[in-house]
């Protein structure tokens, strides 16, 4: 079966992240860039499915040239090839435009059975792109998977939400988005690292995937960020002095915050 994994390069969660003053887009130069951890899990899940069912894993990435490092990481883990949509015109694209671009990029590939994505990226956190891509492809969407099974004909997931766990099934082709709980991603092996650079990566422009430059990017984005401000520094929390009633006070505080 042929599996596509949508991957994104994001600023390392541990580094300081900033928005640029000019247009409120991510200041990519200010932070270390890594393959989004949730995408490592998506790649892992694709590799597991490939190991069980055979086939190929292709990673699809939209991002600046530098994102090839994230692509390389996915290839080192064992993905077979990659499509990198890289174009100046994409700068500032919002979730809708990103989904359009990714769906179009998937459209350049033949006979895709399954698309796997992370449920949300650790930088933008819109959590909307996987569903939009499925919609644009006209495929069933199975989101928030904490477990995935496929026999090559259909796919079944355990969908976890605040309300509970549902088992959801669909025939292929379909799109699945996975959560942090899905698996522990493998480390790339040294052989995998050395093999990665020999694997095919096709770099496509916006035109190559069949879109025009004025459909994407900041200028034509359906949503616009009009202002942004850094989160205020954390304020000191509430101190409870234990005078015999400490436990009760903490429970009262937590239930006041609807945490218990």
């Amino acid at each position, binding site marked *: 079966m042929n599996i596509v994994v949508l991957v994104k390069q994001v600023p390392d969660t541990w580094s300081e992240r900033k928005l640029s003053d000019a247009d409120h887009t991510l200041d990519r130069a200010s932070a270390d860039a890594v393959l989004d951890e949730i995408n490592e899990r998506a790649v892992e899940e694709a590799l597991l499915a490939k190991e069980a069912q055979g086939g190929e894993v292709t990673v699809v990435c939209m991002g600046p040239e530098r994102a090839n490092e994230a692509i390389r990481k996915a290839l080192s883990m064992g993905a077979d*090839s990659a499509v990198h949509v890289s174009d100046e015109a994409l700068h500032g694209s919002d979730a809708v435009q990103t989904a359009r671009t990714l769906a179009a990029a998937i459209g350049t590939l033949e006979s895709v059975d399954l698309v796997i994505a992370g449920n949300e990226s650790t930088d933008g956190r819109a959590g909307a792109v996987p569903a939009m891509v499925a919609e644009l492809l006209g495929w069933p969407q199975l989101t928030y998977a904490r477990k995935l099974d496929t026999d090559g004909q259909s796919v079944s997931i355990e969908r976890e939400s605040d309300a509970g766990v549902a088992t959801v099934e669909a025939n292929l082709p379909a799109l699945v988005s996975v959560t942090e709980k899905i698996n522990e991603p493998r480390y*790339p092996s040294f052989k995998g690292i050395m093999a990665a650079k020999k694997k095919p*990566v096709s770099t496509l422009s916006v035109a190559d995937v069949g879109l025009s430059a004025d459909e994407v990017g900041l200028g034509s984005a359906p949503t616009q960020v009009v202002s942004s401000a850094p989160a205020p520094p954390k304020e000191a929390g509430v101190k409870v002095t234990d005078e015999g009633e400490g436990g009760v006070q903490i429970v009262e505080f937590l239930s006041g915050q609807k945490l218990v």
Partner: protein
Amino acid sequence: MAAPTTARPETPPASPFSLNEDQRAIQETAREFATERIAPHAVQWDQDKHFPVDVLREAGELGIGGVYIDERFGGSGLSRFDSALIFEALATGCPTISAYISIHNMVAWMIDAYGDDEQRQRWLPSLCSMERLGSYCLTEPEAGSDAGALQTRAVRDGDHYVVNGVKQFISGAGSSGVYVVMVRTGQEGPKGISTLVVDGDSEGISFGPEEHKMGWNAQPTRQVVFSDVRVPVANRLGEEGIGFRIAMAGLDGGRLSIGACSLGGAQAALDKSLDYVRERSAFGVKIGEFQTLQFKLADMATELEAARMLLWRAASALDAKASDATRLCAMAKRMATDNGFAVANEALQIHGGYGYLAEYGLEKIVRDLRVHQILEGTNEIMRLIISRGLLEQQS
């Protein structure tokens, strides 16, 4: 589902002063493994004297069990230079674990370099995956630095050798499945020595109690005792009489690895110090404001960088099979292990009383790095090798 492909630029050649993309990726992966799978447990393993065989197997999946072993036999096919990056990166998590893995690699390499294809096929795949661990058996109770005087005897009996003797200070002993053993098959001195590969479950092999040590507690050090152990002649690496050469060839690379382990341990100690001086206050200021400490940190970074450059130079020489590789490896081992120990010791000092507590991880690094100045040839023996090379060159 092929899409049109575009050619990607070739990786530029390795330079001794900067790493290429592959090398950075390899180093990063080893560092990640060390940070996530080793470092969080290092102090506990030391305290409990626990040898984490399960974590070694996990490392095996990355290809760490046969870093510079032929890919046809399950190895990763990388260079000595790459291996120096890997062992330094692993040692930032725990020098003891990294050093054991480096010995394991040395054992696998001796089989790869001196074994025939049948022998390589027999032992290397399971060593590379770290399903089986390897031990290097040269030292004896009465023969350390003067290893050429070893007395463990292998007497030919038909298709077998009958081995009797005691090997001292053997890393991994008892846990390992494969023992590469230097034995006397002929005359006294280095020329009478041969190398046998002995399976750990052979009849007649037994192990002494675990030694109580200053450091290196996360791996066992024990005697290996051979009493009438029958080893097939087919287990001999190369010809009779070349065993000492094999043992010394193994150590050239082994010394690089041990040096790299010192760099990694010391680098971790330096990194901890850089954090600490920004947190800790005394006399109303962060201690990092004291120029004395700033200068100390500057010296530590300089000493490490100098040792790293020499080590990389020696690794390149070994990869190129240069005629001065042995001497350079001895220089690198001497300098990296001396500088590494000194830097770790300074880092402990910077941490004050907390440096002396197990919890902070500094005293463990100091204890671990101390033995690197002793084993795989003491640093006096390194000077012997270096000066011998120098004097021969002059004449």
